[in-house]
């Protein structure tokens, strides 16, 4: 198998390198990719959508269908992870570990027995988890700033690099940082499984719903200039606002999916203890 694989890889690579001879030179302004469609985007974006960031305008307006179905793909990936991994029958772990908060003494509780309810003990993962005050504190202080930065990236995607995908991933990462620095149970308490699933669907719904609203208002699906009568602005500005609305939808969907996938994969679907 190794030899066959090597032969296939070398043959395909040789063919591709031979074909690369016909490519235009690197960063050639007259290359075919930059001569047909992209000049229109670059020169007309400002007057057609009033969005200075061309990438955002192309992403959410000119190629709106593409992005909508990309969001659907991400949603499907989240659902697929959930269906593959989620264990609904709670398997009781053989032993639970608790740490006495004040002294740091670790207690191991066998299956069936219970610890008397007390605030002095905190549940810890059964793998080796030292009590890391610095990591926990630094992450707790950083997470709000990460989230504010994520919201900035989503909201400012019209004027600077950013948008729904990037901001959504940063938002999701802030919760994943919580899950890594504390433990998975803390993160799930903050951002529950049902909320994840709901936000996943809501994000896609915001996107598709904006498109459907345009359809109801008498224009094509995802033609945001139809929103002008709802938002009380001129059609060009309405496109800019429409882009912001769908970017928020994308951000919500991406955030929820990242957290959902992380929770499922890291805990094998038991939501008990993660990495």
């Amino acid at each position, binding site marked *: *198998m190794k030899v066959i694989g090597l032969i296939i890889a070398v043959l395909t690579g040789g063919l591709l390198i031979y074909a690369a001879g016909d490519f235009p030179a690197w960063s050639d302004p007259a290359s075919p990719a*930059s001569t047909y469609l992209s000049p229109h985007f670059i020169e007309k974006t400002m007057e057609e959508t009033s969005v200075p960031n061309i990438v955002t305008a192309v992403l959410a307006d000119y190629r709106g269908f593409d992005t909508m179905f990309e969001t659907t793909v991400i949603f499907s990936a989240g659902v697929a992870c959930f269906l593959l991994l989620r264990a609904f029958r709670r398997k009781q772990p053989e032993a639970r570990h608790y740490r006495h908060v004040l002294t740091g003494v670790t207690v191991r509780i066998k299956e069936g027995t219970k610890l008397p309810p007390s605030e002095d003990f905190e549940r810890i993962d059964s793998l080796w988890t030292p009590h890391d005050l610095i990591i926990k504190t630094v992450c707790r202080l950083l997470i709000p700033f990460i989230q504010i930065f994520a919201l900035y990236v989503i909201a400012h995607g019209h004027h600077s690099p950013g948008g729904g995908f990037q901001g959504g991933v940063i938002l999701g990462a802030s919760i994943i940082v919580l899950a890594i620095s504390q433990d998975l149970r803390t993160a799930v308490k903050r951002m529950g499984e049902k909320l994840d699933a709901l936000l996943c669907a809501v994000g896609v719904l915001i996107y598709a719903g904006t498109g459907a609203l345009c359809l109801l208002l008498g224009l094509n699906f995802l033609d945001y200039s139809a929103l002008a009568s709802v938002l009380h602005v001129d059609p060009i500005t309405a496109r800019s606002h429409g882009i912001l609305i769908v970017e928020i939808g994308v951000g919500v969907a991406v955030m929820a999916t990242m957290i959902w996938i992380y929770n499922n994969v890291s805990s094998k679907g038991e939501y008990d203890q993660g990495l």
Partner: protein
Amino acid sequence: MGDIIQTIVAKYNFWIYITLMMIGLYAMIAKNNLVKKIVGMNIFQTAIILFYVSIGAKRGATIPILEHGHGGGHNVVHAIDYANPLPHVLMLTAIVVAVATLGVALALAIRVYDRYSTLEEDEILSQIREE
């Protein structure tokens, strides 16, 4: 001699992407461990992303974000001054989708490990044959 060097300078980026792509393809075909196959798939995706981003480059061009100000009239925009936005858009979505597919692939690997207690392909196949 000068021609050859010029060709190399003009095309070496494509050769690097092709090399990366073939490393990923070889890993997907020849590696025995499922997680290594997944890593190979990711290297393949990264090569494609680099390839697209390099297509979007233009000599002397800046990022595709237009200058603008409040109230001021818009200057005339020349397409030659801005990098091609289209490959960036395509890869923006592709990166996030790559992460999502990685999640699904890892979930499948976890399920396979639960069922067969191994991630080595030949051991899984021999277990399937025995059943």
